[in-house]
């Protein structure tokens, strides 16, 4: 990706140098060639040429459209990570970066990743807007409170790379920096096994799911007062009052913090809010737990049975 950004960047540098020199050259040439020699002299009237006006309107227009298409295609690729990525969560807060690996490792202001694999960072903020910026990888994304944003990159060379917060976030903004440590796959494996003590992120989420008693309503056997969560992630969920929503990270987060915002079709708005009870990091653990709940059947939607009605799609009860 860095190569694609740089290709366009240096094309633009070339273009800018060409036009800057063209204008500067013409100005210097005219200033010397037509320098006023006699204090009473005036310029020769030159009638405007429509052809010339059209030319210098249309040619720049065409050039900018080329840049537009090129720039958009690069941006499009940035916005669409490959299917298989190594996912890592990060929470920004004044003034540090807190990383959580799926295997449970946690890091602050330092992130270890293997070389050659596409890495997707899923980021949110605990307080104000931050920005995850790794200049070497040409990636940058505002890290917004209350939302999940993702950026992806594929490191090609082992080494240590700057991580900056690029959105002003208060007193120690310039101290909200860190390093991305890109390692050979072997070293990375060694690093992974060296650090994990707490179990995977999903298992931490599962424990939290039980501790908060989520499992009393969200039962896997479809007999609970809340929807079944198995196989939920990534599906279309039918909502009360019509419409659907894709069950992504943002939807799960919203359903935990503001359960009444979107009610799943066939359920009552009885879930209490967990605002203030779970931290951003715990939310990520819960999300990862929900992601880990694989559906046991080919059930096309997460729509559960109406509470009193007969079961339409019997899901196999699963206990983790």
């Amino acid at each position: 990706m860095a190569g694609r950004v740089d290709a366009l960047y240096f094309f633009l540098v070339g273009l800018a140098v060409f036009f800057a020199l063209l204008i500067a050259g013409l100005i210097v040439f005219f200033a010397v060639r037509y320098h006023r020699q006699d204090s009473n002299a005036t310029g020769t009237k030159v009638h405007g040429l429509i052809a010339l006006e059209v030319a210098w309107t249309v040619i720049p227009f065409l050039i900018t459209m080329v840049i537009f298409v090129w720039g958009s295609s690069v941006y499009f690729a940035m916005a669409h990570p490959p299917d298989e990525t190594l996912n890592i969560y990060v929470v920004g807060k004044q003034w540090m970066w807190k990383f959580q690996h799926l295997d449970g490792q946690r890091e602050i202001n330092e992130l270890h990743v293997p070389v050659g694999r596409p890495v997707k960072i899923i980021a949110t903020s605990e307080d104000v807007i931050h920005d995850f910026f790794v200049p070497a990888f040409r990636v940058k994304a505002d890290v917004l409170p209350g939302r999940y944003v993702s950026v992806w990159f594929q490191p090609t060379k082992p080494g240590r790379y700057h991580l900056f917060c690029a959105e002003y976030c208060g007193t120690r903004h310039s101290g909200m920096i860190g390093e991305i440590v890109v390692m050979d796959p072997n070293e990375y494996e060694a690093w992974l096994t060296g650090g994990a003590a707490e179990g995977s992120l999903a298992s931490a989420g599962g424990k939290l799911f039980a501790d908060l008693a989520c499992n009393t309503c969200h039962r896997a056997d479809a007999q609970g007062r809340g929807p079944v969560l198995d196989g939920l992630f990534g599906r279309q969920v039918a909502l009360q009052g019509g419409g659907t929503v894709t069950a992504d990270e943002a939807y799960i987060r919203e359903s935990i913090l503001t359960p009444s915002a979107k009610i799943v079709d066939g359920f009552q708005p009885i879930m209490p809010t967990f605002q203030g009870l779970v931290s951003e990091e715990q939310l990520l653990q819960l999300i990862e737990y929900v992601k880990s709940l694989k559906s046991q059947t080919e059930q096309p939607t997460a729509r559960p049975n109406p509470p009193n009605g007969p079961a339409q799609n019997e899901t196999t009860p699963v206990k983790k």
Partner: protein
Amino acid sequence: MSSTVLTPPHHYLNDGFGVKSWLLTRDHKRIALLYLCGVTFFFFIGGAMATVIRLELATPVGDLVSDETYNKLFTMHGVMMVFFFLIPAIPAVLGNFLVPIMIGAKDLAFPKLNLASWYIYMIGGLFTLYAIIAGGLDTGWTFYTPFSTVSSTSNVIPAALGIFITGFSSILTGLNFIVTIHRMRAPGMTWFRMPLFLWSTYATSLINVLGTPVIAITLLLVAAERIFHFGFFDPRVGGDPVLFQHLFWFYSHPAVYIMVLPAMGVVSELVAAGCRKPVFGYSFVAFSSLAIAVLGFLVWGHHLFVAGESVYSAMIFSILSFLVAIPSAVKVFNWTATMYKGSVSWETPMLYAYGFIGLFTIGGLTGLFVAAIGVDVHVTDTYFVIAHFHYIMVGGTIMGYLGGLHFWWPKISGRLYNEGLAKIAAGIVFIGFNLTFFPQFILGYLGMPRRYHAYPPEFQVLNVLSSAGASILAVGYLLPMAYLMWSLRYGKLAGSNPWGAVGLEWTTTSPPPTENFAETPVVTWDAYDYPERMETNVA
């Protein structure tokens, strides 16, 4: 030039001498001078802050001032320069002085409102100054939420209130210009005979009237959220922090055109007089101002390319941003073409015009980088963007402002400044400016984020260059201050038309009488209608 020039016996400067004759004046020319004092005062305050910023950045560690102080310095530098210098500078000083004279009118349509605008501007400015002295503001001039509404403990509300108040001055001045240009043109002064400075002032006034209320509302929402904890922008109570950015840039992007359009108007005048011929493609230059004013309202989303904007809305804002570049390019080509077969002067105002065209071209071309979304992701919020907008605002607006000030200074003051010193100062400004800001393009590409109090040591060399340039630039700004003041008393008398230029302002005396013209002129010629040869200098 001519040795037998006499000061006219009656002119606006000797029409009353007491403090009251200035503070209660309704003469647009005197109000222009009041504004000149105001904007110069705020410029040097903003400049002093920039000086400390550049001193701090000469070393990678944050050692000169604390991080808290540094954040307040760049915030107030931005607030002072944008709201109290760049936005009012050309319209309120040169516009006020020139709009009525250029159309052959005695004054603006609403002289009392014009004076009120100055008082509102000063009250707003002093209010914001109070916010600095009483502890400062640390949100950045952009006031991004939720930092400004829930996190910052500095003087957000007083500073925002100062900007809010000053906004009314922009709106009223804009309204005054629009009505004046519509209603008070001298007989024969048709729209297409107007100097191009008036077209760009008109376009600017439209943006002022339409855009300023939006920033006023936005700042009120920020204040309301701070005081009453309404959930407009705070996500914890259901608000959307990005909504603020949409509202803020809906005004603040057009505000860039408020700053640069008047400078473009000035440059059109400088180029025409400096080449003694009509501006090439007059109507294209005139309409490009209006095109910029209209398109400028449709591109605010390009400030949000990395702020969670959807891919498709980013693409729409990208294509619109490229479109707004076209009218600017058209202007640059037309100014350059004007020089062809001109009688090209090398006097100070023309040097500023050359400087403007060169720097604005670089500023505009680097705008293509940030409009290309894939590249913007890398360079936004870095020093690349800092360099880009300083090429537009400082390289563009301030070069235009200084060029205009030098061009019309003989008209304003009736006297000539020292041409040699002025040429040297123009050269110093040009060199100092490029040395200050060009290295910042490279810094940005290498990844140095903006608003950093301390930075990794590998960025030091370029930062030292930039700081060195800033000290040269400071000399370039102080010099004109000195020799222009000096000329007020000791300068040679200018005569009514020292440049041998056409345009109604050069047909009246220098300084002009309070009523501008002895009799209302009747216009029977187009703008920039230069004769085959100028007659010997008209005294």
